[in-house]
C-alpha cells in the first residue's frame, strides 16, 4: 500500500510541494451557516453571498479557495494546510495530502487538475452537505452550529460557565458561524439547488449530514431527485447521516426511498451513518433526545429491510462513554451476527467507528481518573476478541480498523501531553451542574461511577 502512496506523493510533488487534489475534488458545505472547507484540517471559511449570486458553484469554488489552489499550482504551500506540512516536515509519514489525493474520487483527476488554470471552476467528486442545523437532539458535545435545539437552549439560558465559554452565541457570532434560522430564506440553499443539476452527474460520493438530515425537506428532495435522475449518475456512492431519533414515518420514508435506490441499482452503494457512544440511560444522558431502545429498533429495521446497506455508528467517544462502551460492543456484535450476509456493500452490516472527542475539553477522556481509563482498554480487548478476518471460522466480527480505533482511544487517554486535567475537571463539573439544571437530569444517579470526582471538583 505504501508503494501506491509513494507514487501518489511523487506525482503530486512534480507539480508542487503543496499540491493536493482535495482542494479541487472534495468539499464539505454547511448551507445553514454558509461555511465551507475542502478538507477538515483547514478551518472553514465563509462563502461570500456576492459570489454565489453570480456563480452557485462558488459554494465550493470560492475566490478564497481559488487563491489557495493558485498557491498549490505555483509550487507553494498554503498556510491553512499547515497540519500536513507539520507531518511532512517532522516525520517520514505520508500526510493527509497524499491520502486524500489517493482517494478514488481524486486520483483519476490528477492530470486534469495539474493542467487546469487556478481560476477555473471545478465540480467536486466528493461532496458533504448539511442543509441546516435543524435537529431534535442536543448532544452534550455538540453546539448551536449543528443543532437548532442547542440554539433554543443557549438563547434561553446563555452559554455554559466553563473557562471555554462553551457554546457561547457571542463567540459564534464573532466567528461568523451563526446558522440561519429554519424559518429564514437561506441563499446558500438556493444556490445549492441552482448548482445541483450540474453537480450531480460528476459526483463520486454524496453525503448528507446535518443537523438531523431527515428533518430537512431538502434531504428528501435530493433523494427523490436521485430516484428520478439516476441514469445521469448510476455510480453514485450515497451516504446519509441520521440520529435515528426522528418520528417513525420519516425513518420509513427514508427506507422506502433507499429500497428503490438499492433494489433498482440507482446508486453504486448506500451507507447510513448514525451515532451513539454509550448504552441505555448513559447514552440518553449524553445524547439528549435519544430513545435508546427505539434507536436499536430502527437499526434493526434498516438492516432487515435493506439487506445490502451497511449502518456505520460514528461514536464520539467522550468521558461519559467509558462505563458502558463494553456493553455497546456486545450490542454491535449481536447485530453483526444477526444481520450478517454476503450482499452488503461493505464487509459488515454494522460498523462501530470510534473517534475520541477532543473538543469540548471538559468531555475529553483525559479528564478521567486513571482507573476509569482502563475501562477503555477492557473494551478494546473485548473488541479484539470479537475480531475476525478472512481466515476465521466465524465470518462476522470486528475488523482490525474498528478494534484499532478503540485501542487508539485508550492510547490517547493515557498519553502524556499538556492537557490541563485540573482545569477541565472543574469545567466538567460546572458544565454538568448547569446541564442537570437545564435538562432536569441527575448526573449522580446516571453516572454513580463519577460521583466522587463530581463532588470533589464541584
Amino acid at each position: 500500500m505504501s508503494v501506491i502512496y509513494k507514487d501518489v506523493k511523487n506525482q503530486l510533488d512534480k507539480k508542487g510541494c503543496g499540491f493536493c487534489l482535495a482542494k479541487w475534488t472534495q468539499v464539505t458545505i454547511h448551507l445553514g451557516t454558509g461555511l465551507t472547507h475542502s478538507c477538515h484540517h483547514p478551518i472553514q471559511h465563509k462563502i461570500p453571498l456576492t459570489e454565489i449570486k453570480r456563480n452557485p458553484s462558488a459554494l465550493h469554488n470560492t475566490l478564497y479557495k481559488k487563491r489557495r489552489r493558485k498557491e498549490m499550482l505555483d509550487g507553494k504551500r498554503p498556510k491553512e494546510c499547515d497540519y500536513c506540512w507539520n507531518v511532512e516536515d517532522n516525520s517520514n509519514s505520508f500526510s493527509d495530502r497524499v491520502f486524500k489525493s489517493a482517494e478514488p474520487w481524486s486520483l483519476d483527476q490528477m492530470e486534469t487538475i495539474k493542467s487546469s488554470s487556478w481560476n477555473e471552476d471545478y465540480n467536486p467528486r466528493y461532496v458533504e452537505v448539511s442543509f441546516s442545523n435543524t435537529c431534535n437532539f442536543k448532544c452534550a458535545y455538540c453546539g448551536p452550529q449543528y443543532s437548532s435545539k442547542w440554539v433554543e437552549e443557549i438563547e434561553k439560558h446563555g452559554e455554559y460557565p466553563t473557562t471555554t465559554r462553551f457554546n457561547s452565541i457571542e463567540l459564534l457570532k464573532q466567528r461568523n458561524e451563526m446558522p440561519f434560522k429554519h424559518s429564514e430564506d437561506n441563499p446558500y440553499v438556493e444556490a445549492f439547488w441552482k448548482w445541483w443539476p450540474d453537480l450531480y452527474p460528476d459526483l463520486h460520493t454524496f453525503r448528507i449530514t446535518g443537523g438531523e438530515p431527515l428533518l430537512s425537506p431538502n434531504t428528501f428532495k435530493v433523494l427523490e431527485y436521485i430516484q428520478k435522475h439516476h441514469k445521469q449518475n448510476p455510480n453514485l456512492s450515497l451516504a446519509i447521516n441520521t440520529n435515528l431519533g426522528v418520528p417513525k414515518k420519516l425513518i420509513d420514508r427514508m427506507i422506502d426511498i433507499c429500497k428503490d435506490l438499492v433494489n433498482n441499482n440507482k446508486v453504486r452503494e448506500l451507507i447510513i451513518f448514525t451515532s451513539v457512544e454509550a448504552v441505555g440511560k448513559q447514552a440518553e444522558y449524553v445524547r439528549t433526545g435519544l430513545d435508546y431502545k427505539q434507536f436499536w429498533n430502527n437499526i434493526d429495521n434498516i438492516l432487515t429491510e435493506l439487506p445490502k446497506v451497511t449502518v456505520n455508528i460514528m461514536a464520539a467517544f467522550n468521558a461519559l462513554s467509558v462505563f458502558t462502551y463494553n456493553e455497546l460492543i456486545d450490542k454491535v456484535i449481536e447485530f453483526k451476527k444477526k444481520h450478517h450476509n454476503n450482499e452488503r456493500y461493505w464487509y459488515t452490516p454494522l460498523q462501530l467507528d470510534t473517534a475520541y472527542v477532543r473538543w469540548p475539553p471538559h468531555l475529553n477522556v483525559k479528564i478521567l481518573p486513571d482507573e476509569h481509563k482502563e475501562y477503555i482498554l477492557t473494551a478494546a480487548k473485548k473488541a479484539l476478541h470479537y475480531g475476525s478476518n478472512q481466515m476465521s471460522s466465524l465470518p462476522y466480527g470486528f475488523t482490525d480498523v474498528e478494534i484499532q480505533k478503540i485501542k487508539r482511544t485508550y492510547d490517547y487517554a493515557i498519553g502524556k501531553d499538556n492537557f490541563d486535567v485540573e482545569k477541565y475537571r472543574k469545567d466538567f463539573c460546572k458544565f454538568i451542574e448547569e446541564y442537570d439544571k437545564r435538562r432536569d437530569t441527575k448526573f449522580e444517579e446516571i453516572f454513580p461511577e463519577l460521583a466522587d470526582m463530581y463532588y470533589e471538583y464541584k
Partner: protein
Amino acid sequence: MNISRRNPWALWPDSICPSFLDNPAVDRLQGDQYWKIDIEFEYTGFAPDKQKDIFCVVPKYTGLSIFEKRIFVGIGYHDEDDWIGTDEFVEPNTVEKFSYEHFPNDKLLIVRNGSMLFEYDLINRPLAVVDVPIVFIGTDKHIVSDQPEDIDIKVHLFKITVEEGVICEHDFKELVHNKSIDKTGNCNFLYQLG
C-alpha cells in the same frame, strides 16, 4: 478443545488486529530466545493414514506430528527444516504431555510425559529467526474447505513460557467468538480457522 482438520486453530493475534499487542507471544518463539511450549492432548485415531500436526511453529517448521500413530518431530533450523520420524507411538484416547524447551544456540529438549525423549544440539546449527512466527494447532498439510470435520485431536493445554515466566496459557475453558481466552490476560488468544 476438540479440533478437526477442517477447523484448526492458530496463535496469531496480529492477523486479527496488527499492532494491538506490543509483544505477542508468538514473536518470542525464535531461534535466538529461550522459550518452552507445553501441550497436552489426546489423539482420537481418526484417519490415521493422514498426517496430523499436533502443533507447529511456522514458517520454519518446529513441531510435533502424528502419522499412522507414529510421532514425527520437526526442527526448524536456520537453514532448513528437519523432519524426523521417531520410534515413538501414541495410542488413541490417551492423554499425552509434551514439552519443547529451547535454549538458544545450545539445545532443544523434547520431554514426553515427564521423561526426556530427545535432545537436539543447536550449538552449530541454531533454530531459525523469522519475521512472523505463527503457531498452528491441529492442521493437516493444507487448510482446505473440503477437509473432514471429524475430531482427530483433543487439546487440553497449550502454554508458552519465556524467561519472564508464562506469557500465554490456554485450558480452553473460556471461549469467545471461536477464540480461546489467554488465561494470563496477555490477549495471546488462539482462534479457530475456517
